[in-house]
């Protein structure tokens, strides 16, 4: 019997209409755990690096994690992978909610979709019975609307449905995959789903998930719950409100948005409004939020309440989380939060990413002001800030007129528009729009995470090391005294020594070596979460989380019956980290691509930044171009990867330097 995982994947070929239940190799679970790890392994094995993201050969994978659906709190993530049409690199996007656990109860760890359906279809998985059903009647329907229609027509109120909206159908590069309160929205995987002709995947399962050592496992789960309770009652002092607790930032609960509105930038990630927040705005925004917020809600088997049901009179109900109430508001320069909630409703039904999409629109209006785009491009567009955003959102999602060009994101749109438009697509890393955050002094840890993260989205890379130094020694001592999560005591000293000003402050402290250590720890926890299917909100993201490197190995051993300790888990992390790096290296990723936006920090330190990258690559066992060396790959049981990279001339037998210089930046589609 397989424990914690099911041991079967569902493989669907949409071109041929073939459906198979395929047993998986338990050895792969030991090597990669599951979720992102095994998805990456399958992607490496099955697709050549030359394959276009919209090729029928691309497998679009929906995966649970190894702990998904077990009683481990917060183990509910769905990990979706393919190649990103926007970055052209491996695209992985994740969502919470209820979908992945239901898939496991139906008897599968993953759904792997390849080929393309000639007509729009949806997949209905009901335990052993799997159907590809016509979805002609769902053309153009909203992502949430589709979920409701499918549940009704199947008469399955307990089915969980992941669906795309019109944006996915039209292959908009910021198209998301929506499921109830959750969405997998970064990197355009909704476009890949739409390209395959899949409107939705509905799943219902009534089977068991087995646990190898039940008593031991339950004790661990109860400890985690106890710690969550403790953390909920004891917020971390001396940090800003949204960083004090667990979960994703509690944006639906809190109404105080002084920090975001004054520190994040407005419009096309340009304008900082340092005196925006005042009593009057606070009162108005509080009013708006409390009037539309019906209930705070959770994902499957998680006590946190990171999202909310939003009901606005005259609009259909939807669900929201995190920062999206502000992304449209701030990009459009609208001071009324009501607009943020209203346009997010339309955007959620269309199924678009709430980070990239508003930036694309702000980018377009900046190009118009600069005369690079003309009035002809905006014929019929209202002139007010709210109206023009609605208008442009409709054009982008429908790929009409200028919307068709903008639908590919700021990088590709700028390439097509030319005339200097590239300068306006200024907030990208690896062609992907970043948080609208512009800061003063370079933070060496954040520099490395932005530059080298394969997720290309800081919130899925950053983590539990404080974002800023504490002001006083007392505060630092207070912070480190019950910091049980550190993999090594040295991290406590780094916090104790870190000063807001002077010699031991950014950018030279944490030192280069410390920065590399810190980043490695943050990344490690994210890679483990993404393989296990545990929400980062209870693990790698917040300060002092309930899951950490000391209890994760015990969870894995007790749940799956795999022998695991901290060293072993670190080895799995390194294996998955290098595997994903190798996939991207094979797609052309090089050091030249590892650049945060030039204006992310006002004060930059080119020499230090090069040193940071050098040290990070060295620590990882990569050459100075960011490519894992033969030795590194061999030590991680990835010799087949080094052989492939050598065969392709990307690596050479015995040297550290690559023999061929490329970059995805220079690759044209």
């Amino acid at each position, binding site marked *: 019997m397989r424990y914690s995982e099911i041991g079967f994947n569902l493989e669907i070929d949409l071109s041929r209409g073939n459906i198979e239940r395929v047993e998986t190799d338990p050895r792969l679970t030991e090597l990669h755990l599951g979720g992102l790890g095994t998805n990456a392994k399958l992607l490496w094995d099955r697709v050549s690096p030359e394959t276009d993201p919209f090729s029928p050969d691309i497998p679009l994978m929906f995966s649970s994690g190894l702990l998904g*659906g*077990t*009683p481990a*709190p917060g183990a509910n993530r769905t990990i979706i992978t393919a190649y990103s049409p926007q970055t052209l690199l491996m695209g992985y996007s994740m969502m919470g909610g*209820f979908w992945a656990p239901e898939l496991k*109860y139906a008897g599968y760890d993953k759904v792997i979709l390849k080929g393309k359906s000639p007509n729009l279809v949806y997949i209905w998985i009901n335990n052993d019975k799997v159907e590809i059903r016509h979805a002609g009647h769902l053309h153009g329907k909203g992502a*949430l609307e589709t979920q*409701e229609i499918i549940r009704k027509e199947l008469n399955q*109120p307990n089915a969980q449905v992941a669906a795309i909206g019109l944006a996915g159908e039209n292959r908009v590069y910021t198209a998301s995959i929506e499921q*109830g*309160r959750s969405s997998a929205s970064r990197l355009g995987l909704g476009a890949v789903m739409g390209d395959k002709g899949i409107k939705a995947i509905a799943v219902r*399962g*009534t*089977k*068991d*998930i*087995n*646990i190898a050592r*039940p*008593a031991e*496992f*339950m004790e661990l789960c109860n400890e985690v*719950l106890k710690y*969550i*309770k403790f953390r*909920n009652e004891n917020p971390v002092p001396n940090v800003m409100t949204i960083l004090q607790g667990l979960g994703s930032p509690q944006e639906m609960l809190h109404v105080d948005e002084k920090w975001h509105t004054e520190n994040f930038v407005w419009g096309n990630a340009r304008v900082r409004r340092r005196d925006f927040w005042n009593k009057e705005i606070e009162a108005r925004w509080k009013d708006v939020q409390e009037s539309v917020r*019906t*209930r*705070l*809600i*959770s*994902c*499957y*088997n*998680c*006590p946190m*309440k990171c999202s909310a*049901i939003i*009901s606005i009179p005259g609009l*259909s*109900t939807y*669900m929201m989380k995190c920062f999206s109430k502000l992304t449209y508001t701030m990009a459009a320069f609208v001071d009324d939060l009501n607009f943020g909630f209203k346009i997010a409703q339309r955007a959620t039904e269309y199924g678009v990413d709430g980070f990239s999409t508003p930036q694309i629109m702000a980018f377009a209006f900046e190009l118009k002001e600069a005369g690079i785009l003309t009035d002809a491009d905006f014929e019929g567009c209202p002139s007010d800030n709210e109206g023009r955003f609605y208008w442009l959102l409709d054009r982008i999602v429908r790929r009409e007129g200028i919307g068709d060009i903008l639908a590919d994101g700021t990088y590709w749109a700028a390439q097509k528009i030319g005339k200097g438009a590239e300068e306006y697509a200024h907030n990208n890393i690896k062609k992907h729009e970043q948080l609208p955050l512009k800061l003063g002094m370079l933070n060496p840890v954040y520099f490395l995470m932005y530059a080298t993260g394969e997720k290309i989205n800081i919130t899925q890379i950053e983590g539990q090391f404080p974002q800023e130094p504490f002001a006083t020694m007392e505060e630092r001592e207070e912070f480190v005294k019950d910091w049980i999560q550190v993999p090594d005591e040295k991290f406590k000293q780094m916090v104790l020594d870190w000063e807001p000003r002077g010699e031991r402050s950014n950018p030279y402290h944490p030192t280069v070596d410390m920065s590399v250590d810190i980043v490695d720890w943050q990344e490690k926890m994210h890679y483990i979460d993404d393989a296990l299917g545990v929400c980062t909100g209870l693990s790698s993201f917040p300060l002092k989380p309930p899951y950490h490197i000391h209890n994760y190995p015990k969870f894995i051993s007790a749940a799956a019956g795999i022998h695991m300790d901290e060293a072993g888990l670190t080895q799995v992390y390194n294996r998955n980290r290098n595997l994903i790096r190798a996939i991207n290296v094979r797609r052309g990723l090089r050091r030249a691509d590892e650049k945060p936006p030039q204006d992310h920090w006002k004060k930059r330190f080119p020499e230090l930044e090069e040193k940071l990258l050098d040290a990070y690559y060295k620590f990882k066992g990569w050459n100075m171009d960011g490519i894992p060396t033969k030795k590194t790959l061999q030590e991680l049981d990835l010799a087949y990867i080094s052989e492939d990279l050598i065969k392709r001339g990307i690596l050479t037998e015995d040297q550290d330097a690559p023999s061929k210089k490329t970059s995805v930046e220079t690759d044209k589609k």
Partner: protein
Amino acid sequence: MGEKKKKIVKSIKIDLDKCTGCRACEVICSAFHATPRYSSNNPARSRIRVIRDPMRDVYVPVHAGEYTAAECMGRDKYVIDGKEYDECGFCRASCPSRDAFKEPDSGLPLKCDMCEDDPPQEKPLCVQWCLNDALIYEEREEEVEEEVKPEDIETGLESLANKYGLRKIMETLARMSQKG
């Protein structure tokens, strides 16, 4: 009049406003009732279900009650504060009209047993795992009159006697006992 006797009444207070729909109650209930204990979990086997419809803001945790062989002749629909709840939305019965509270493999009915355990649990597991306090366990002592309860067979025979007459029952019994 029978004798007075003390009885513990166990109840779970359900606060619909506090339910966040996480279904941790279903997860832990099904794990607790697995054999061996906690060896598997499966919400379809749970004795508590969250009747949940986010788009209508409906969140109703319901514990499995009695099995009933036939569905009701009519169904109830509650409207509270302008919000309409599902038909049978508050009903605890394991009944032919829905798939809740039945073992998925055999269809056998499930019933909440307040996590009877040896040694006893401090609270039912669903309550322990509900960190948002939507489920609150309450125990109270009640004095009840000790009734002299008729045995089951007596209740059965009495209803037969009501229907067919005592004489007919006695004749039938006599005939049956002669056949051996």
